[in-house]
């Protein structure tokens, strides 16, 4: 059998050659593949936005590291900068964070093994965000159970390094860009979200939710700034869900 070192498929060869440290390091290296670079660039754009909205470098980095999920990061800085209360900002953040629960439920059983400590699992679950999660679901099944948690911790740590370094460089570089390039950089974040949601929207309800969210967001912002994001999510999402359930 040919060596399958780069991802899903057969058991990678390094599994037979090294222990937990190798599994971790091989996970770290995943950040150097395309998804890691995309993450770096999106963090770059996030930092430019955070800077424009009046956040400091330290606050932008903390937001990236502590939240570690781009939609919630953007919502948090956006809501705070627009004068929403911490409660309103927190509620909008939570509405996008609930989707992490089923993602965690999907991946946790994959890395369950007798030797795992609770602390390591709590650290690993922090890395549950789209990029690391997709790579984990793709790569973990090919590994023996006792190597999976180490490998996922490596993937998550590498992606975290991509996010934090992207935030750092984005913040610094954005300050030096001419306004037009700065504007193009800021424009990339909404476009990135829309494209990636269109790419992963499998069910009709998801596509209807994108459309309704896009249509309802601006009028709700004019009518009820501060709570517009939660209204858009709850109203648009619920209607999309109901339509989707009726014609599966």
């Amino acid at each position, binding site marked *: 059998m040919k060596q399958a070192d780069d991802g899903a498929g057969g058991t990678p060869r390094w599994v037979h050659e090294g222990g937990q440290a190798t599994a971790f390091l091989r996970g770290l290296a995943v950040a150097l593949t395309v998804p890691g670079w995309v993450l770096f660039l999106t963090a770059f754009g996030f930092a430019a936005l955070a800077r424009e909205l009046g956040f400091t470098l330290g606050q932008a980095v903390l*937001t990236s590291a502590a939240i570690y999920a781009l*939609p919630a990061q953007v919502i948090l*800085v956006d809501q705070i900068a627009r004068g929403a209360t911490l409660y309103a900002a927190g509620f909008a953040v939570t509405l996008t964070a609930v989707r992490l*629960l089923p993602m965690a*439920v999907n991946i946790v059983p994959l890395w369950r093994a007798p030797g795992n400590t609770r602390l390591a699992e709590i650290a690993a679950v922090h890395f549950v965000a789209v990029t690391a999660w997709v790579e984990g679901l793709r790569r973990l099944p090919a590994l023996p159970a006792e190597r999976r948690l180490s490998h996922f911790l490596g993937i998550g740590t590498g992606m975290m390094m991509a996010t934090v370094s992207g935030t750092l460089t984005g913040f610094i570089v954005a300050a030096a860009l001419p306004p037009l390039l700065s504007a193009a950089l800021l424009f990339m974040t909404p476009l990135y979200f829309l494209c990636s949601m*269109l790419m992963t929207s499998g069910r009709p309800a998801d596509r209807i939710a*994108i459309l309704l969210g896009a249509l309802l967001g601006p009028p709700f912002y004019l009518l009820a700034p501060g709570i517009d994001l939660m209204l858009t999510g709850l109203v648009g999402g*619920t209607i999309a869900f109901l339509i989707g359930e009726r014609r599966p």
Partner: protein
Amino acid sequence: MNAIDDGLGGYLAILVVAVVAHESWRWLGLALGRGIDADGALFRWVRAVSTALVAGLCLRLVLFPSGALAGITLGSRLIALAVGIAAFLLLSRTLLVGIGAGAAALLAVEGALGLFTR
């Protein structure tokens, strides 16, 4: 201009929102493990709500921007958004094509406007 307190208070506010409003859902997922149906109706609804919210956020970032993007005319922003989405849907469903086409359109349209109005 600072959005929030530059001292400990600002960092603490970010950390509290991150842990309470965000991280708690990851911990709940870890605790529940296999115990729930991750593809059930409840989570299909959650997914739709989250999707609509982020889509609304995107349009708001484009229509009511702040900072440097606010210096770009509304028409240019709308044309660039349409170009980006159309390129993504019609040419190739890769992020690079959608984002690249949109950003290039923004620069091109705004650059052309700049030449005419100078």
